[in-house]
């Protein structure tokens, strides 16, 4: 069997390469495709952690639905190659130190955490799904319903804006 650590690094490398390519690509469609690669790699990482349901939902919702909408909009607007502008000074001054700081914090947090992920006794298959549904519909039912209400409001807002243009 292939040790999980190798699978992890391969998937992580694909995800990072996709993320870098997302920023560096000049054409919006290529950027969108890079983002899909990142999402599929992330789904692989979830699978590695034993979160099968989350992995499948990651692909179905993000790669299969949201990114299709992105691609659809890019195609509809016929967005062309972006112009390269000079890097803004603010990004240079504030961004680089902040980036370094974030990396440092993350590395410190990872180095500090000694807790080894408990192997074995992973809940499998339907148990995971059942756990997620219990959390969503029992423990966190109010935040969950509020979020869906928020989304509904956003949909209505979008509809109103689209309708106003028609008249």
């Amino acid at each position, binding site marked *: 069997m292939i040790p999980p650590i190798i699978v992890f690094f391969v998937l992580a490398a694909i995800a990072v390469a996709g993320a870098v390519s997302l920023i560096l690509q000049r054409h919006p469609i*290529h950027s969108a495709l890079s983002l899909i690669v990142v999402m599929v790699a992330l*789904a692989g990482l979830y699978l590695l952690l034993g979160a*099968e349901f989350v992995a*499948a939902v990651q692909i*179905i919702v993000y790669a299969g639905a949201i990114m299709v909408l992105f*691609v659809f909009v890019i195609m509809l607007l016929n967005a062309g190659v972006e112009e390269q502008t000079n890097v803004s000074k603010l990004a240079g001054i504030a961004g680089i130190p902040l980036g370094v700081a974030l990396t440092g914090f993350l590395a410190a947090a990872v180095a500090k955490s000694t807790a080894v992920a408990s192997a074995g006794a992973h809940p499998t298959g339907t148990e995971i799904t059942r756990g997620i549904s219990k959390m969503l519909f029992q423990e966190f039912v109010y935040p969950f319903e509020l979020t869906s209400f928020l989304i509904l409001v956003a949909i209505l807002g979008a509809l109103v804006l689209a309708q106003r243009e028609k008249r």
Partner: protein
Amino acid sequence: MSEFLSQHAFFVAAAVKSAILLFIVLTTLAYLTWFERKLIAHIQSRWGPHRVGPNGLLQPLADGLKLLFKEDPTPAGVDRLVYFMAPALSLALGLTSLAVIPFGPEPMRIFGYETHLGIADLNIGLLVLFAITSLGVYGIALAGWSSNSKYPLLGGLRSSAQMISYELALTLSVVGVLLMAGSFNLREIIGAQEGRFLHGILPRWNIVSGPFPQILGFLCYFVAAVAETNRAPFDLAEAESELVAGFHTEYASFKFSMFFMGEYANMITVSCLASILFFGGWLSPFPATPIWTWTHYLPSAIFAGVGIYAILDGIRYETVFGRIILPGLGTALCGLAALFAFVPAVNSYIQGPFWFLSKVFVFLFIYIWTRATLPRLRYDQLMGIGWKVLLPASLANVVLTGFFVAKWSLR
């Protein structure tokens, strides 16, 4: 060598099974085109392909060779990477989704290694299937975009809008089945449909039984699935009367045939899933009581019938080639029939796969029948059906099934 084999038996078995399945599926795809052309021709009172080989049986081979040797021009101004990636993506995703389909109940023993019919037996089989099919839209949308041409772009746009709309109904329509089976595993979903009810008259398939019969769910599933696979009457993405050939206008030669094969592979997946989710998969429609043991000889009877017909039809065929090939084919089928009938182990083993494949065949027939019968929808009608009919209907199915499952399990 044998040590290597025993250590990595899982990978070796997976690779061998993939190769065999790939061979079978690609052959089936080729003959599905023959079957489709023949069936549509007969529905329209024509003969269909009958020149290449006896009864046109070698037509798929000729088509394949023709597609391979055609000139393959790349239009000017295409986005090269995406243009070449799109057909490969279509075909790869179409074939990958078949990997999670289980084809038979009993494991197969080869050299002391036990393996299931079907490549991967996953806990989240159904979700993986939907994940793969949800990615399938990229093949078509990107092909339309990267071709740098008007008609493909319109086809790609149409297909992505259509697929987003119908995916909702498709996914919601199977929730009822999931509620009744309580599992995402395709084997367990079939297992939950075992047994009979109503004094053993009806099989306990999801379409008729359970707390709430999934007739509505099945209708929603099949209509949405036909739309997802871009088949008539929902083939707006390649509507030849408006868009030349839609998303694959600028593709020629083998790249075109990759789209074609991807579409047919998707048809097979949809048919497999329909029979697994709603029609009991490999379960026989007859009861398992001793009176019904004669149904175990149905596969033999069908094979022998087709074989004898092929022999009788073949010896009177016009060409010498046909007079050799057709009776040969018939004899081979009769031989298979004899094998199924007279070797008890083989007989009991093929029952599952036989029923599964015959159900899949029925759905493929319906697919082609629909294509030959119904005219293409208008685009606004397509969107109307997706959002105003299928989505509410599948939601109602979820609510009703949930209600009945909850009521039934509380008792």
